[in-house]
């Protein structure tokens, strides 16, 4: 399926999904849905650098929270519509992604991962000490209750995140099938061999980091309006990193479907668990599933499905 057709199909599916969602009985559906869609974006974004290129980013919080804090920083200055904030969040995080990549991508895999964690903590420390955005006390955002046409504000936020999810999936898929995607895969499989084959590894890694960071920043931009109160420890929470890694790993890291499946699967479980059991237990579930899948099914749910299909085909042939 060509790129054009895919975007059209994705838009139609997205619109249909939204249409059906409007029939939801209460607001809670949109609140939970927002979080799951946010994770679709984060997981897909992470996977571009992690699954496609092979570089593990623990510093997800840095890009995500930076997007959120750009919105917080602009809030007292000028009232901007959320889509504009999303673009700004994306730009800020994209630039930071580029900068971070430039400093750390010469490091081999494990050091890179630790360096990304280091960046997230350093950034968190700076934000915690920056009183303008509330510092450790946090910042409050007021949001309108209703929005024309859609009704509740939360429906509006839900729609924005849905659009972002479709965009991120579209971008991931386009990359997969392009020359860029081949380059990423070569780097992941064997960076030295890729370099010897003519792949400009550093440049491509920077592209991956920038795109990945920008998408995460876009996912973070609406956050202050969703939670209405944001402080550094929740904005930079390590659970964003754990989820962004767990979801592609559980779903499957080699293509765009994996993060989507992983985000919906894990995201929904967590939403249910938070409501029914406790939020600490839900993090335990994430950790256990992460380790479980890493050990047993490293190619994720998508990988398991592919194996199943492959075996059925072999049986049919025999």
């Amino acid at each position: 399926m060509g790129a054009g057709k895919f975007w059209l199909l994705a838009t139609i599916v997205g619109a249909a999904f939204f249409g059906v969602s409007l029939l939801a009985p209460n607001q809670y559906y949109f609140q939970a849905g927002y979080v799951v869609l946010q994770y679709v974006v984060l997981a897909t974004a992470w996977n571009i650098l992690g699954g496609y290129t092979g570089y593990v980013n623990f510093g997800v919080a840095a890009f995500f929270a930076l997007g959120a804090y750009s919105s917080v920083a602009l809030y007292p200055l000028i009232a901007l519509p959320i889509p504009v904030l999303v673009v700004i969040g994306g730009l800020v995080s994209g630039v930071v992604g580029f900068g971070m990549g430039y400093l750390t991508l010469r490091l081999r895999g494990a050091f890179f991962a630790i360096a990304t964690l280091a960046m997230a903590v350093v950034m968190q420390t700076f934000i915690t000490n920056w009183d303008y955005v509330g510092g450790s006390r946090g910042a409050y955002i007021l949001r309108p209750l209703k929005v024309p046409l859609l009704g509740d504000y939360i429906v509006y936020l839900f729609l924005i995140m849905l659009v972002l999810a479709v965009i991120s999936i579209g971008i991931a898929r386009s990359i997969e099938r392009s020359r860029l995607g081949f380059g990423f895969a070569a780097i992941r499989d064997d960076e030295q061999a890729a370099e010897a084959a003519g792949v400009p590894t550093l440049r491509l890694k920077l592209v991956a980091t920038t795109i990945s960071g920008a998408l995460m920043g876009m996912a973070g931009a609406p956050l202050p309006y969703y939670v209405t109160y944001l402080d550094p420890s929740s904005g930079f929470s390590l659970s964003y990193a754990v989820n962004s890694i767990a979801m592609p790993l559980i779903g499957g890291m080699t293509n765009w479907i994996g993060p989507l499946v992983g985000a919906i699967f894990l995201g929904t479980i967590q939403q249910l668990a938070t409501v029914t059991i406790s939020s600490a237990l839900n993090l335990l579930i994430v950790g256990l599933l992460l380790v479980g899948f890493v050990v047993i099914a490293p190619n994720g749910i998508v990988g398991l499905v592919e194996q199943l299909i492959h075996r059925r085909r072999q049986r049919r042939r025999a």
Partner: protein
Amino acid sequence: MTALLEVTDLGKRFGGFTALEGVSLSINPGERVGLIGPNGSGKSTLVNCLCGTLRNESGSVRFNGHAVDGLPAHQRTRLGMARSFQLPKPFVSMTLADNVRIPLLYTVNTREHLHAAPGKLDSRCLELLELVGLAAKARQKPRDLTQVEMRKLELARAMAAEPKLLIADEAMAGLSHSEVDDILALLSTLNERSITVILIEHIMRAVMSFSQRLVVLVAGRKIADGLPQEVTRNPDVVKAYIGE
């Protein structure tokens, strides 16, 4: 005729250990050069310095008229220098066809625009695999290959970059007699297509039959450089190999 590869006084150290010292070498277009030396003499280090995987501390490397010192490996490949790795490094998640597609997309593509015609790309991948006898396995992944097939894939990938110079780093290690002949035939075919070949090997009969010229490296220094028959009679060379 100006040299294709001009190495002047190359030096490389790892901490306190001198891997290469004062190595100078001049290779003309179309030559078949053999590079031999005992284990640890610095052959692979030399290859890595030439290709850009490692950075030499002293001396210079000129390729096809360009000074390549400090250039990253991918740019040297684009200039026309290709290498195969001693231990094959295939792209394991891709099919064989896609393995050779990478150099086409990233090296050849910078010289002529291939991706505009996707069919052309596919057929060129198959051609390359045909050349090494792996066309039948084009859709399979590297994990299904035998040792010698992996070596051939390595060479196919190096060739895909349409190099002027191919450095084959111990491409025949561990292969049987006939498998060695296979690889030699391949390299000869390439040389007939005017690709300059540097063959780094331990298998003496292969080196002797293939090379027009033999270079000997011992303990990081070049101790001999000339016709194979003369070099093998050189007392320093004999001592290096036997008197240890």
